[in-house]
């Protein structure tokens, strides 16, 4: 079935059944492999994207639910103010170890800062609890979110 979605400000048309999860469309059809497949059941956060600015898990999100809504992926989040700040802070704090979960972590952190510019620890917990990191970079993630929020970045 021909479907049209708005992804990163561009209109993309492709053939896919309406129940196909957005993640499959992004990775397999459109070749946008920055968004990762982790668990496939919305439990790890690796596949996080933004829909209308909110962080959602693309692995359980059928494309029929996101027609006419603005989708942003890791490839484009750097062009949003909060996304740019988060990416810079991630580099400054050297958050990443293996990196597999990090595009999801960055997407969740960027959505958090867009809604809550100065988050405290409880806000960070509430927004980031669904993003799992097997390398255990949580301490640096928290540090980088605070750095991004502080405006102290060079």
């Amino acid at each position, binding site marked *: 079935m021909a479907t049209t979605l708005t992804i990163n400000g561009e209109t993309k048309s492709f053939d896919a059944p309406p*129940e196909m999860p957005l993640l499959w469309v992004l990775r397999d059809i459109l070749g946008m492999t920055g968004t990762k497949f982790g668990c496939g059941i919305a439990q790890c956060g690796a596949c*996080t994207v933004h*829909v209308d600015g*909110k962080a959602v*898990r693309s692995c*359980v999100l059928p494309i029929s639910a996101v027609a006419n809504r603005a989708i942003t992926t890791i490839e484009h989040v750097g062009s949003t103010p909060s996304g740019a700040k988060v990416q810079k802070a991630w580099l400054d704090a050297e958050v990443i170890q293996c990196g597999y979960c990090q595009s999801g972590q960055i997407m969740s952190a960027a959505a958090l800062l867009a809604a809550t510019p100065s988050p405290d620890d409880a*806000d960070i917990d509430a927004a980031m609890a669904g993003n799992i990191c097997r390398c255990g970079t949580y301490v640096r993630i928290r540090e980088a979110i605070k750095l991004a929020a502080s405006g102290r970045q060079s």
Partner: protein
Amino acid sequence: MSRTMRILASLVVIAIVAVALGVFIIRGPAPLDFAGGTKVALADYRAGKPTGVPAKLEKAGMVERGEYLAKAADCMVCHTSPGGKEYSGGLGFKLPFGTLYSTNITPDKDTGIGNYSDQDFLNAVQRGKRHDGARLYPAMPYTSYTYMSDEDVLAVKAYLFSLPAVRAKPPENTLSFPFNQRWAMIFWSAVFNPDTRFAPDTSKSPEWNRGAYLAEALAHCGECHTPRNLGFALDNRKKFAGAITAGWHAFNISSDKATGLGNWSDADLIAYLSLGHAPGHGSASGPMGEAVDHSFSQFAPEDISSIVAYLRSVPPVPSPDLPATTAPVAPASHKDGITADARGKNVFASACASCHGWSGESPVSPMATLTGTWAVNDPAATNVAQIVLSGTKRHTPDGALSMPAFGNAYSDDEIAAVANYVTARFGTKRSKLTAKDVAELREQTAE
């Protein structure tokens, strides 16, 4: 007669009267007694045709008509085990006194119903009597199907006999004494099965009569939504007032404004029945999800409208266990509103918030919105825990939307905590589920 004999005779008479009175009181009214109008035999009813198939299938063959009616009666869901072939039986019904398995109703001669004559089939469906004379347990809703016309029952038989015969023997029932005494169901049946066909009510519209036939004889709504009496039969004094069935809360579908369907619009009811979702009313899950997927979604639109017209007429019976109004949208920030129950909040943040949002209005789809649903407004949190345990999936014309099952990912304690957090944040009253309650819910639905 001696004095002793006279006393004995009087005692016998008193005992008989007491038993008869007891039976009369326990049995209560029949499912359509509330309507109160004049009932006529189906053959004498001229205003419309409440039985049979919708107009588009009027000229169809018997098998095709039977297929529609079998779906309307939702035979398949109970007569198919997970992973088993359709209609080949073996689904377990977990009861407090053992497990009962559904039978193979494919036309296999050894393990199915291949040897059933028309009369055998009528006896089974309308009277709960098996081919070999043994009695069926009322898990088979023959006290509802008894209202089906012979013609419709035999159309269902024609459909079943058109299917491939599947050789499959369901497991033996594991009922304990005295429930394993099948013969005793003769008495149950004599008291609780009216063994009568649908009789239209001339004081009501043809649409109402069609709806009554569909809801009572075929869809057997009351089997889940009407509370049961002392004899485990439907207590129609509280018709459609809601009940716990198979570990799920089948909510009030009487016309009560606060806790029933009284405030649902026609459009909401039509959407809920045919798609399994109505805006602000949640999505059908568990047994109702199955009923929508396999039965109601296949109904002709005019049949759905008839059921709605009928449901509207069922007298209001309030559910005292539910709040008079559902809770409004919760605050957008996790910090506002309910903050107690750190463990429940933690689980919600990791597993639930990305789809359901902190406000209860889903950022993903209206089908995942929690605000306004009975599940989160039920202080018993039964369905919240069930959906968390086993997940849910809604099929729509635009594709399916599903929630994964979390039963294997979280402990009973964590599921109790998140259910209590969810009812507190999005409902009217915090539930008090314990790990033990969740373990029991797992037990009731395990299959």
